[in-house]
């Protein structure tokens, strides 16, 4: 990369927070040069300090935090020294702007969209109100809001999440900043929307020549937007380089781990490479390489001396002793090699349970409908859905938020009552009123793993109670000793230490908590587990742990999963069969590889195209397929649920089915 003008230069920035009387060093001497017009992605797990670091460029640190060392040079001024809000206002908006993570809360709910955009225009561009209005309309159009004239006078709640994020971006861009910081702008959005927002950011960067810092925890996303990538860990940038360098030739073990943990790079039936443990506690003083305790290939020196940056190329630096000539040579893991094309991707020998003549139907859902509310507020969450789950398979349900996938899971575990149809478990009806014995049997047999490890554990109860809650209810033990033994076993099973039983959930990290949740389900010795987005709230490094665990348990206990996800990439790795759900309807259901190879329904195609590939070359050249529900004309020709190939179902009317068949033949 040719030398460009440095627009912002952070040197040895140290940021501390005072928290509960202690001092937490969130950024430990972090340096970064930002070049004019580039898109830099900063990647890291939660708590790595990526967000804090960039907030310091704007003076937007929380009240209890402050820059305690280093300098941030911007336009010849050390903005780390700025104190008053007044000084910062010179920088904010007009010079550096920011797009925050959650579009749902970052707009004033009581002001019209247009006004909010106009506000920043009036602040930073010398325009008359009439001109500002025109400019605001223009901005709205620019960020891809159709019918801007009408949308201008609407309120945020009338916008979907993706649309709101577009508005937030419009507001930020309307300030005409030199640097735009995008702080996880797509994390709260659906995959298909995420892809669109990423494309938008790319466009805007080209149009306005802004410098963009893109913060994310997901390396897959980075490949799409970034020219340069910085990987952060424990308050430091441990590796920085161009996107190609980081994706194809990462040098730091942490970068390997991050990339390797991506399920897109996993091989079905094999373990994903994982990063054990959790990020370090920044309250403590860290000696040596902060990643060392989690690194299987750590050197002795890693525990004692902090590594310096080693330059791989002029643009590629990494902070690891492994690059030291004195250090032993360590091969890049296979997954990295796969990525850089040195190995071919093989999705392994998928099982085909539906072709098994001896298959046993464990769960059967027939024509199920779930509605919420009554009268005019009635809302159909799940609309006449039918499918079967066979013993021993992993059945995945994929759809965006609000599609009804979680509702289906909860209906099967009988948390939500169903309003029509029926659910059979081992051939017996379990929906509606059932006998006590069957109730017990279903409680034992069907368990659930929840999405949010923070919310799914009772904070005020000990792990021991949480894990043994089910066996207590059903008195599945003879005496106290046996119960404790069962708890210990369950904890060991999920890779936790038995002594954790006497602790409270808040003492654990997200991954550990998710494993406690799994232990809670596992202790019942269930046959069937509904895993409701078990990894989507977890950091990338932890996801792999949980996915591996689920796979392991499946083989050990012959478990059957209903795996609910919003992201096809994960599902491809774990699922045997996949059902795609859209607005309460299953639109396509097929064996996993078949679905990836021959997606029929346009929505499936859109979902597939939105999967972020951790490969800059692929990402930059891919065509985004946008799903437009209005392509279906169901006014006369009613759609049907049709098995178009053995084991491959699709939802469509006769015309569509015809075209699908044609596509399959082709």
């Amino acid at each position: 990369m040719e030398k460009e003008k440095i627009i912002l230069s952070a040197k040895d920035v140290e940021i501390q927070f005072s928290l509960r009387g202690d001092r937490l060093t969130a950024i430990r001497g972090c340096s970064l040069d930002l070049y004019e017009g580039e898109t830099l992605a900063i990647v890291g797990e939660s708590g790595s300090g990526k967000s804090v670091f960039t907030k310091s460029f704007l003076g937007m640190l929380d009240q209890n935090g402050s820059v305690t060392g280093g300098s941030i040079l911007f336009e010849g001024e050390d903005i780390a020294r700025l104190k008053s809000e007044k000084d910062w206002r010179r920088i904010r908006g007009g010079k550096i702007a920011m797009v925050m993570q959650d579009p749902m809360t970052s707009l004033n709910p009581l002001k019209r969209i247009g006004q909010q955009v106009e506000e920043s225009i009036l602040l930073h561009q010398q325009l008359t109100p009439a001109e500002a209005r025109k400019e605001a309309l223009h901005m709205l159009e620019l960020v891809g809001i159709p019918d801007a004239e009408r949308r201008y006078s609407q309120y945020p709640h009338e916008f979907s999440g993706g649309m709101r994020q577009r508005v937030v971006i419009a507001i930020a861009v309307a300030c005409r900043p030199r640097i735009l910081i995008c702080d996880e702008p797509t994390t709260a959005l659906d995959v298909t929307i995420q892809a669109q927002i990423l494309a938008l950011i790319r466009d805007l960067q080209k149009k306005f020549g802004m410098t963009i810092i893109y913060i994310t925890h997901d390396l897959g996303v980075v490949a799409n937007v970034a020219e340069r990538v910085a990987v952060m860990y424990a308050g430091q940038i441990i590796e920085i380089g161009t996107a190609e360098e980081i994706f194809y030739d990462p040098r730091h073990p942490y970068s390997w781990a991050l990339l390797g943990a991506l399920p897109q790079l996993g091989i079905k039936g094999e373990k994903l490479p994982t990063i054990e443990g959790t990020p370090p506690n920044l309250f403590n003083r860290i000696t040596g390489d902060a990643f060392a305790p989690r690194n299987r290939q750590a050197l002795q020196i890693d525990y004692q001396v902090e590594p310096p940056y080693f330059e791989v190329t002029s643009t590629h630096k990494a902070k690891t002793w492994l690059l030291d000539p004195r250090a032993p040579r360590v091969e890049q893991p296979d997954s990295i090699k796969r990525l850089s094309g040195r190995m071919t991707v093989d999705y392994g020998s998928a099982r085909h349970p539906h072709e098994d003549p001896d298959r046993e139907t464990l769960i059967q859902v027939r024509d199920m409908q779930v509605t919420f509310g009554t009268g005019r507020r009635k809302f159909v969450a799940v609309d006449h859905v039918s499918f079967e789950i066979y013993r021993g398979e992993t059945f995945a349900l994929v759809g965006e938020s609000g599609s009804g996938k979680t509702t289906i899971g909860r209906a099967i575990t009988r948390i939500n009552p169903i309003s029509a149809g029926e659910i059979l478990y081992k051939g017996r009806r379990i929906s509606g009123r059932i006998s006590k014995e069957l109730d017990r049997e279903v409680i034992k047999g069907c368990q659930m793993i929840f999405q949010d490890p923070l919310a799914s554990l009772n904070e005020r109860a000990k792990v021991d109670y949480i894990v043994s809650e089910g066996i207590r209810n059903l008195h599945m033990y003879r005496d106290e000793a046996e119960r404790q033994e069962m708890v210990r076993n369950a904890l060991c099973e999920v890779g936790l230490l038995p002594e954790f039983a006497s602790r409270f959930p808040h003492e654990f990290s997200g991954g550990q908590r998710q494993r406690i949740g799994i232990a809670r389900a596992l202790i019942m010795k269930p046959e069937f587990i509904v895993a409701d987005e078990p990894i989507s709230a977890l950091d990338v490094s932890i996801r792999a742990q949980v996915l591996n665990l689920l796979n392991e348990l499946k083989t050990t206990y012959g478990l059957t999963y209903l795996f609910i996800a919003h992201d096809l990439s994960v599902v491809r790795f774990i699922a045997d069969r996949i059902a795609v759900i859209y607005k309460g309807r299953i639109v396509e259901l097929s064996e996993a590889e078949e679905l990836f190879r021959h997606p029929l329904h346009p929505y499936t195609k859109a979902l597939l195209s939105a999967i972020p590939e951790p490969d800059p070359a692929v990402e930059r050249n891919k065509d985004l397929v946008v799903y437009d529900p209005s392509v279906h004309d169901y006014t006369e020709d009613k759609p049907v649920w049709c098995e178009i190939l053995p084991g491959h179902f699709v939802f469509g009317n006769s015309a569509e089915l015809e075209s699908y068949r044609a596509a399959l033949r082709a």
Partner: protein
Amino acid sequence: MLKYTIKRLLQSLLTVFVVVTIVFLLLRLMPTDYYFTEDELIKLTDEQKDDILQAAGLKDSAFVQLGRFYAAVFRGDLGTSRRIMNGKPVTEVIGDRFGISMRMGCMALIISLLVGIPMGILQARHKDGVFDHFGTAYTIFINAVPRLVSYSLVYILGVRLLRLPAMYSTRQPGVSSILPILCLAMGSIAGYALWMRRYMVDEMTKDYIKLARIKGLTPRGIMFRHVLRNAFVPMAQNLPTTFLLTIGGSLLVERFFSVPGMGPLLTNSINRYDTNVVQILVMLYASMGVMGMFLGDLLMSAFDPRIRLTGKGGESR
């Protein structure tokens, strides 16, 4: 909208009906001796008392009375007072009094809005400053210390030091209203300041405020363009209730300063077993209560575009 309004009004009607019926029946459980004055109790024999009660229609069974009452209300006849002012239509009894309560209440309301809300705003803007501490001390004092004590203080200071009239007088409504209005406003100023400050402080931690800061908006701009209106929404919900309740008058203040308002009417009419007045008053209060809630929801929906008034309650999504 219209459908919603009708539905809400019908629901309110039901609530009012239930409340009035309950109070009606409770009243009939009261000893009828309250119907008589002390003078009468000294001299009247039980037989004479029975005759008087019978003449007043209070001897019939409670349900007969209830039926008669609702039939009369349905005809639009709200009955006459018996013991507040014998034979005077209840509407007039109430009409005489609620004007004064309302005028006083409105004055106090206006004052407390004009003082309380700016006070809350200033406190929130200069959070943890001297003024904030001062204001907080004031709100704590007013909210914590029983009203009887703080009114007594006002009374002593006002009457003894400032030589203000201790009693409301129709001849000098201005001067003699100062102390009662002060007492009324004192409490609600504290209330408004407290809630305004709290809502504003809450609002200031919201993400969209961060975005506004990032835009480069001045603290002033943020305060006036974003925080103020949003913080006002939850306040707006209570405004109609507060306004309507001014008609009800404040029992304590009006007793304290001999204001001939609605406040003491209620306890007086119960004390005197003036059933018609009690029933209509309860009906009035209950209607004001439910109307207040309804208007509050309407007002909120006017301020907050997120709130759609359909189906039950003004639930936001």
